[in-house]
């Protein structure tokens, strides 16, 4: 019993782990807002910084704030006033001239203290130069190098400005899609087996796997739409990835229509196996090739990496990969129940 269903136990354990860890671990501290986010040269500007998940009060003694121009050059805050854990003010004196020949220059904000570790917000403050003189700027520039940053302690997910807490959807939306492809793959394997041996239960397994694959696809589409609402601004923005996904699901809905068009079980099995293989082969260019070649908002399009780089750090990997395995195993489990239900119903209908 245990030996037979170890993978079901694994599915439950992995999913419990990903649900708990994925939803409970806090995000890294971040910067939500900097006001005002613009200034002029020669001014003394006071910016109000709103933090997220940060502990400014606790880390007040070791607090340092910089405006970073590039890798080598940065300005340190002259004065820092901490109002609370989530709010503080920093005063910067901007020199008369900047060592760049752009009229408007963006600065990143870097905050560092012992409790939160180093936190940055790219393009936080824009400085407009009254007159351009890069050489003069080079001479008056007083560099405060960013040194001895504190390390982040504890288990956190990365803080991304647009994503914020929705980053946790990585453990639902993405693994559901992975699981869907694995389910469809399994279904194709059974369809091929059916065409080699013509055993009706191979086809029933294929149908059950496709059914659950479509269910996961719909769930993936819904979670994706919810994510899109919070990051792109609308549930459905006619993005190429969303369109192709919808088309892919239509292809598989057609599979069920095709199945129901036949009375004879042998003919039904044979023709739906053929269509299933055909559909899977067209699915791959549909969701993995075409969106990558056209412009899309979705990661993984227009040359963007889908996963990797800064988007998926090691803490997220620890939950992301188990989530894929967990969802896939759960999918196979549901599919095996559907298959057994089909068998039982058939046997009982035969008896009657």
């Amino acid at each position, binding site marked *: 019993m245990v030996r037979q269903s170890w993978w079901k136990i694994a599915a439950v354990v992995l999913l419990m782990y990903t649900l708990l860890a994925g939803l409970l671990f806090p995000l890294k501290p971040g910067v939500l807002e900097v006001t005002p986010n613009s200034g002029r040269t020669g001014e003394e500007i006071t910016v109000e910084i709103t933090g997220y998940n940060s502990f400014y009060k606790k880390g007040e003694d070791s607090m340092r704030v910089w405006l970073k121009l590039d890798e080598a050059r940065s300005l340190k805050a002259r004065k820092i006033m901490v109002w609370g854990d989530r709010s503080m003010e920093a005063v910067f004196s901007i020199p008369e001239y900047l060592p760049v020949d752009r009229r408007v220059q963006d600065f990143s904000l870097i905050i560092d203290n012992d409790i939160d570790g180093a936190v940055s917000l790219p393009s936080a403050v824009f400085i407009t130069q009254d007159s351009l003189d890069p050489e003069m700027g080079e001479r008056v520039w007083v560099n405060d190098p960013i040194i001895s940053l504190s390390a982040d302690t504890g288990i956190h997910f990365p803080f991304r400005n647009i994503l914020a807490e929705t980053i946790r959807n990585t453990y639902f939306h993405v693994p559901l899609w992975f699981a869907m492809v694995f389910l469809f793959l399994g279904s194709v394997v059974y369809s091929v087996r059916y*065409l080699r041996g013509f055993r009706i239960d191979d086809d029933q397994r294929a149908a059950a796997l496709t059914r659950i694959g479509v269910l996961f696809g719909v769930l993936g589409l819904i979670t994706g739409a919810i994510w899109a609402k919070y990051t792109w601004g609308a549930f459905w923005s006619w993005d190429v990835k969303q369109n*192709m996904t919808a*088309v*892919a699901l*239509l*292809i598989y809905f*057609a599979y069920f*229509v*095709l199945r129901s*068009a*036949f009375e004879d079980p042998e*003919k039904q099995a*044979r*023709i739906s*196996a*053929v*269509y299933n*293989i*055909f*559909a899977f*082969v*067209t699915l791959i*260019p*549909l969701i993995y*090739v*075409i969106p990558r*070649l056209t412009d899309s908002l979705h990661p993984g399009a227009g040359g963007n990496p889908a996963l990797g780089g800064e988007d998926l750090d090691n803490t997220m990997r620890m939950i992301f990969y188990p989530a894929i395995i967990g969802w896939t195993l759960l999918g196979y489990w549901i599919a095996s129940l559907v298959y057994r239900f089909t068998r039982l119903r058939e046997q009982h209908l035969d008896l009657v």
Partner: protein
Amino acid sequence: MQIVREIIHLFSKDVRLEFRSSYAISGILLYVFSTIFIIYTSFVQVQPQVWNVLFWIIMLFTSINAIVKSFVQESNQRQLYYYALANPTAILLAKILYNILLLFLLSVLVWGAFAFVAGNPVRQLGAFVGTIFLGSVGFSITFTFVAAISAKADNNATLMAILSFPLVIPILMTLIKLSANALGLLQDTAVDQDVLILIAIDLILVAMAFLLYPFLWRD
């Protein structure tokens, strides 16, 4: 090569059958002209953007109507006779080739008729002819295979539409982009990439059709 000879014979059989009966082709022609007539009377002035989309929509429905007959115009007994004489894949390939020819002629015809009533916005002639050729190939492969599937179920037309529309959408979207380029509507630098996508999709589909048809034809 046995299979090439079979394909040539079957292909010429299909062409001759079409000319003799001329029922199918005249039906399609009537369909094309009445569609274009309706479009002309409702639009009168057709912008190039709209021209492009309407052209491909007319082509889509014309192709479906032309191809749905592939496997049902001849009686089951006669088809059984063909299967006894020739390799089933040769029958499928001959049908695909014949449909490519038919669809290419039909698209030239639709283009001509459309140009006659709504003007001809095509700027790059070669690119547009290439696009409609690629379109005929893609439509022909997809629709012929789907027609083979839906011929096995008796409610042909509905099933044909349900099965083939989602499959053909990626091809259609790439085609509309390519022909927009030929119409000078957009300056696309990645034309070869789109052409490659189309050829790749066509190759995948024809390979799958070739592999799977032996399981399909038998009753």
